[in-house]
């Protein structure tokens, strides 16, 4: 059975050859879209995500306006061709939930009281999905917001940690390993997944979800690992923004 698959070997090497605290390959590019006020293209392992920010602009419909501050509306959407079995286009319960928690996370970071009655729209489009799209989406959104010049307290960043390999070949329970950034099969057959988003400057956690089974001690380990991952990715985000603006300064 495939669920008996060995996710980690005796030397602590994972299916894709990564170490337990190693991220998949991440590539970030800022300012990729022409129309958007800010945008970002991000590749993270097998994930490919584009994010675009529009705003601040008048919030429509009117009743959605807040007279005291701006609203942040993130919309997470998966392309029909982004997964193995075609996904029916349009929002489903899962993407609505991700949109909601992402909006709330971003709202914490954006200085919304500067723009009463306005909306800041963050569109996250998943072109290809392979575990960890919500983290990829939020990380891309952070870069797109910064690229749009939206005043923020920080550039938000997300990463997941999890637990794999608590079943040995004979299906017996063993200790298991807390690992950084679950891959597709680790997510499907692993024991727990803990995606978080933080404000890297202060270390505040702005998004946290968990499914699976972790002991208190494992949770502590996973959280520390995920924060470590976030801090690494935060540097890649800043490099991407820096690169865009340095490129803009070059004279040809």
């Amino acid at each position, binding site marked *: 059975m495939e669920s008996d698959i060995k996710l980690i070997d005796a030397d602590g090497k994972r299916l894709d050859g990564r170490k337990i605290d190693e991220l998949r390959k991440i590539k970030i590019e800022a300012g990729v879209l*022409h*129309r958007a006020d800010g945008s970002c293209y991000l590749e993270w392992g097998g994930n490919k995500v584009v994010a*675009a920010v529009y705003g601040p602009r008048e919030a429509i419909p009117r009743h959605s306006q807040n007279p005291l501050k701006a609203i942040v509306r993130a919309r997470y959407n998966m392309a*029909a061709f*982004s997964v193995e079995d075609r996904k029916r286009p349009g*929002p489903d319960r899962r993407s609505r939930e991700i949109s909601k928690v992402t909006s709330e996370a971003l709202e914490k970071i954006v200085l919304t009281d500067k723009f009463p009655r306005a909306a800041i729209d963050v569109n996250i489009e998943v*072109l290809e999905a392979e575990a960890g799209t919500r983290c990829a989406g939020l990380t891309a959104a952070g870069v797109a917001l910064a690229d749009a010049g939206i005043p923020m307290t920080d550039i938000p960043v997300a990463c997941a940690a999890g637990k794999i390999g608590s079943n040995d070949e004979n299906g017996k329970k063993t200790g298991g390993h807390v690992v950084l950034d679950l891959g597709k099969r680790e997510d499907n057959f692993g024991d727990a997944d803990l995606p978080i988003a933080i404000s890297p400057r202060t270390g505040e956690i702005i998004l946290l979800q968990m499914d699976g089974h972790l002991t208190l001690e494992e949770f502590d380990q996973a959280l520390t690992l995920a924060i470590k991952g976030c801090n690494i990715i935060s540097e890649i985000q800043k490099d991407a923004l820096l690169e865009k603006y340095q490129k803009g300064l070059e004279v040809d």
Partner: protein
Amino acid sequence: MTITSSIKRDYLYNLAKNGKRQDGRDLFKFRNITIETDLISKAEGSARVKIGNTQVVAGIKMNVGEPYPDTPNSGVITTAAELNPLASPDFESGPPREDAIELARVVDRGIRESGVIELDKLCIEPKEKIWIVFIDIHIIDYDGNLFDAASLAALAAILTTKVPAKRFDLGEDYPLPVKDPAISCTSVKFNDVLIMDPSLDEEEIAEARITVATDSNGDIRAMQKGLKGSYTVDEIKKIIKVSLDNGVEIRKKLFESVGK
């Protein structure tokens, strides 16, 4: 609804009257086109097409399904287009509106009528099992002329599609059976001037729009006129000729990018 200032309108009118355009192009010339294929490994075929700043991603997924009763020996194509709010401040999320539906249907018609996908070869068991080809088109950045960008992306994706037979225990994967594609070229008209491949600004002041899909024999495979304006017969003839010329160029580019 977008509002164009009359100063911009007059500016574009005057340029066009003198045979010029905002970006320095000739009236009947396309912007720079780039085609990338095989960018989504989860999809059976995929492509990203840029025409100027307009950017479109198309992906193909295939499934086994039942044929329609009236065509028991042929596969099925469905085309859907999403005008993502990502692509423009004017696009909203939600179910496809009429412009997205028109876009999908015009692209669909170009593909269907040209017979680029050999549907009769997509029959697995007559009356029982056939392949369904899902063509999904995502608009990522909108700077005019979605019709051509969308159909070119769909074609590039189709020409690089592999039928996922292995996944359905139907033998080895093989390339999707395809024939000669029809290339669509869109032009608009304003103030009695015709221009090819309108940018967003030009589209906003357009009075009439026409899309012509032509094949490698120089025959017309699909057409669609849109907007409120009208054309004279001479104008239509002129447009068909220009569309054919551009079609030859674009076809060459398409074949180069998909390695044919």
